[in-house]
């Protein structure tokens, strides 16, 4: 298909990976998309590190304790909080994406009447309210467990 469009004189003008990262003047969902990728990469990097650190068990108690001592510095502690934040964001935005990929919370198609408002913008308050509700429930459960444990 692409070959049909390429003549000798045309100049390629694909944005490339810059198009993933640069959300420019687009609205919030475009930024959520970029952040979803970033947090996904972050979580994957954490899982890799976590498995490497877990591997120190193979060197017995001494190896494990020295790894835990190495990881107990403030830099890694901040990193753990960042991982938790990334997990919460990735899970919440993933939940939104899943709902919307399955056509929920977007409403039905409507004949376009100017000024045009797309389904995501039309239903944005509902989506955000739903996410806030899920997040609120998650925080409530977390706090309740910490208080009553």
């Amino acid at each position, binding site marked *: 298909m692409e070959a049909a469009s390429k003549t000798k004189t045309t100049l390629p003008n694909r944005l490339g990976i810059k198009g993933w990262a640069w959300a420019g003047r687009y609205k919030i969902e475009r930024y959520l998309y970029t952040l979803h*990728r970033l947090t*996904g990469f972050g*979580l*994957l990097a954490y*899982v890799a590190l976590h*498995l490497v650190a*877990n*591997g120190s*068990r*193979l060197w*017995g*108690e001494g190896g*494990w*304790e020295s790894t*835990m001592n190495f990881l107990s510095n403030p830099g890694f502690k901040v990193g753990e909080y960042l991982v938790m934040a990334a*997990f919460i964001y990735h*899970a919440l935005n*993933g*939940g939104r994406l*899943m709902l919307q*990929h399955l056509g929920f919370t977007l409403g039905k198609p409507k004949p376009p009447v100017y000024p045009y408002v797309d389904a995501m913008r039309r239903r944005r308050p509902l989506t955000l309210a739903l996410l806030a509700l899920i997040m609120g429930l*998650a925080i409530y*459960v*977390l706090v309740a*467990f*910490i208080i009553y*444990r």
Partner: protein
Amino acid sequence: MRENHLKILQYVTGIGLFFLVGGYHLLLMHLGKGDPESWSSVAQRAASAGWLTIYILILIFGIYHGLHGVRGLILELSLPNRAVKVLNWSIVLIGLAVFGYAVYIPIQAF
């Protein structure tokens, strides 16, 4: 396997991970007794069938969800159709290797 079946699995593993990792974290950090990172706690968990089941489920769901996400990103780099098969097999092999390594640790260590 068709692409939409892979995507359905991506959704299922995503939901599963939310509850499994959330539950694992709550049990480990807030409901457990003592330091969860101490050698004795780690050894105790490795000997428990319940903890091992949660661990293996998180591994399966996490490896699938993560590697399927990475596969999607690599596909987006204009990967030609001939290379898609190579990518698929590479992803399967990486997944199996990571799973094997991650299961080997608690079995071998204690």
